[in-house]
């Protein structure tokens, strides 16, 4: 096939298409968000689920029907979907199930730097790590094959640099004659009660032992012979930096990093005078090789923070752990001029509110000049954290606490928080603002169950926030357009802060970029 120039995310989508994936389900999250849009544009069946757990469950269901499925998310999304992952590893799959998970070393747009390889170990599922778009394509195809062959979920670990770098890809012929979906009753495999899960755990460990053996002999790992003085064991995009930083070194590129090809790694380390493990994030491979008795060097602690690049690899190889120059800070991102969130936070600031915030564009309100958000941890936390504060703070302070959550985040993980609010009511009541801008703005204006449109922007059922809030028996509900009715909105907020009751205010005004984008092709996050 002809060569193409593809971003990592596009290469993954093409790989999934060529692997004949019957459905992809995910929840947006930079840097993974473009995969499903591209898959849809290429003709694949793709959906945005309310959150990553539901997405993974949908994909698992598809795989129980004997066909190939995948789910996409950013690294923290796997925290939400982890419950599915751990037990799907036991149940196994009938068709194939691939988790596409994008890490963010360097925190380009995330709240932490967690390393997905740790999940592979904890759950006991194979994990592959591409180093460019070609491998993103190849490893996606391979992940479906491994998943189907061993009936086990497989993780593809991407990183921001892989997702959002373009490199050349030569695709292969699509898979043909894949099985058709049908349901095969198999209660001991599909129903994970203790009596079924005990043998399932044994089956899982047996599969992993076989895959480990396969990875030693046929795995997607590559040795490049070079100097006998220096050998580098490396995975992911760091491989590219290594080849440039040290063109003469011998290199062992690990493509499948769980289960690791430990014997091969030990052999490689033993053939060179100096063996160095270079990897982004946690010292995961270095620890594993050492635990197996290998004599290797690894990067000093300072290099587990942030991305690697050619310069940092050179420093590691030169044993340089002197402080690195701090790069000058650019202009920070801000809310767009005219963003409806601005009005809301100006009002919250005027009322000296303690704002338990959440994640989305509106988190930018925590930065100067607004500085009007006091907490932000993970999606949905605005509710629980705000309620916790209300429960224990002295009355006068408690009454100033407001929880603020975006519409997509509310559907993702605010519904259960709202149930908590309605159930364990603090003595001063509570106030929740749902910022309904009719899109998932921060990650590039994706649809969600509250927008009334599907992933491809075609019409869909629309979640009605007012009815949901009413169904939870919250006594005070209001709906305001912050731009058209700032006065009324402010008055309602002031009244709510006075009452010792529960109030939910729905602040409804579409994101200006989503309005501009409507009618424009999906998947363009061009700015």
């Amino acid at each position: 096939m002809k060569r193409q120039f593809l971003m990592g995310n596009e290469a993954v989508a093409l790989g999934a298409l060529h692997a004949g994936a019957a459905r992809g389900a995910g929840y947006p999250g930079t840097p993974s968000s473009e995969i499903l849009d591209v898959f849809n544009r290429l003709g694949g069946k793709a959906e945005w689920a309310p959150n990553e757990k539901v997405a993974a469950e949908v994909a698992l269901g598809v795989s129980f029907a004997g066909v190939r499925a995948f789910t996409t998310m950013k690294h923290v999304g796997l925290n939400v979907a982890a419950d599915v992952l751990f037990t799907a590893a036991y149940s196994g799959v009938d068709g194939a199930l691939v988790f596409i998970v994008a890490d963010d070393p360097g925190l380009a747009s995330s709240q932490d730097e967690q390393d997905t390889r740790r999940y592979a170990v904890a759950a006991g599922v194979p994990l592959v790590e591409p180093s460019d778009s070609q491998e993103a394509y190849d490893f996606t195809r391979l992940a479906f094959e491994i998943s189907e062959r061993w009936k086990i979920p497989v993780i593809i670990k991407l990183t921001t640099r892989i997702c959002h770098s373009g490199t050349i890809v030569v695709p292969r012929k699509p898979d043909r004659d894949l099985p058709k979906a049908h349901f095969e009753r198999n209660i001991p495999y599909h129903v994970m009660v203790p009596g079924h899960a005990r043998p399932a755990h044994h089956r899982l460990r047996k599969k992993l032992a076989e895959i480990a053996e396969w990875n030693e002999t046929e795995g997607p790992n590559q040795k490049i012979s070079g100097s006998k003085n220096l050998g580098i064991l490396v995975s992911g995009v760091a491989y590219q930096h290594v080849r440039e930083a040290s063109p003469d070194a011998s290199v062992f590129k690990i493509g499948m990093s769980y289960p690791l090809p430990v014997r091969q790694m030990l052999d490689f380390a033993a053939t060179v005078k100096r063996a160095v493990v270079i990897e982004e994030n946690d010292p995961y491979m270095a620890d594993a090789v050492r635990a197996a008795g290998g004599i290797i060097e690894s990067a000093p602690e300072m290099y587990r923070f942030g991305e690697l690049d050619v310069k940092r690899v050179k420093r590691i190889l030169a044993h340089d752990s002197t402080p690195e120059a701090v790069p000058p800070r650019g202009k920070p991102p801000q809310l767009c001029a005219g963003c409806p969130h601005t009005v809301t936070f100006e009002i919250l600031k005027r009322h000296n509110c303690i704002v338990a915030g959440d994640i989305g564009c509106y988190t930018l309100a925590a930065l100067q000049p607004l500085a009007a958000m006091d907490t932000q941890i993970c999606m949905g936390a605005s509710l629980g954290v705000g309620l916790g504060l209300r429960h224990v703070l002295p009355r006068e302070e408690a009454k100033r606490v407001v929880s603020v959550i975006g519409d997509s985040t509310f559907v993702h993980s605010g519904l259960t928080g709202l149930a908590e609010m309605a159930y364990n009511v603090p003595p001063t009541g509570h106030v929740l603002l749902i910022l309904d801008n009719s899109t998932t703005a921060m990650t590039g204006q994706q649809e969600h169950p509250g927008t009334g449109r599907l992933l491809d922007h075609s019409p869909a059922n629309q979640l009605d926030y007012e009815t949901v809030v009413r169904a939870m028996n919250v006594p005070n509900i209001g709906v305001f357009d912050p731009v058209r009715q700032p006065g009324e909105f402010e008055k309602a907020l002031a009244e709510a802060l006075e009452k010792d009751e529960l109030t939910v205010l729905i602040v409804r005004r579409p994101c200006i970029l989503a309005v501009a984008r409507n009618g424009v092709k999906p998947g363009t996050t061009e700015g």
Partner: protein
Amino acid sequence: MSDKVTSIKIAGLGGMGVLKSTQILAEVFFRQGFDVKKAEVHGMSQRGGSICSDVRFGKKVFSPMVPAGALNFLVLFQDDQFPLYEADCSPGTVILKPAAIDPAKLENKRALNIAMLGLLSRHLDIPVEVWLNVLHEALPEKGYAVNESAFELGRKS
């Protein structure tokens, strides 16, 4: 083809068309048969914050990010962004600034990114037809003439 890798960094603020111009650049080199890599930043940094993208081409390119000191061209869409990238530059780095484009002759200010590509194109040994073909395919038909004249303006500046 020599083994030399050419490295370009485009820098501006979110909304100035940094991503569009890197997409065009990478496509031009791709069509010329080079190995090409580009690295860009999406997400939060697009809300008007500082943003930059790297494009590298040659016979074989490894890292998608331009290593410190290996930058051949720094293309700035706004002068005040220079200090952020000063450390990437070496004495050999060619720095292209928007001041080179006569604002009076730029029909639409939003086409500055394309004008800067025109300016950069003068330093690269690639036939002008290749640039124009890629521009034509990458930009919307509506308003294309403005972009083409911006490119020509940059090329003559």
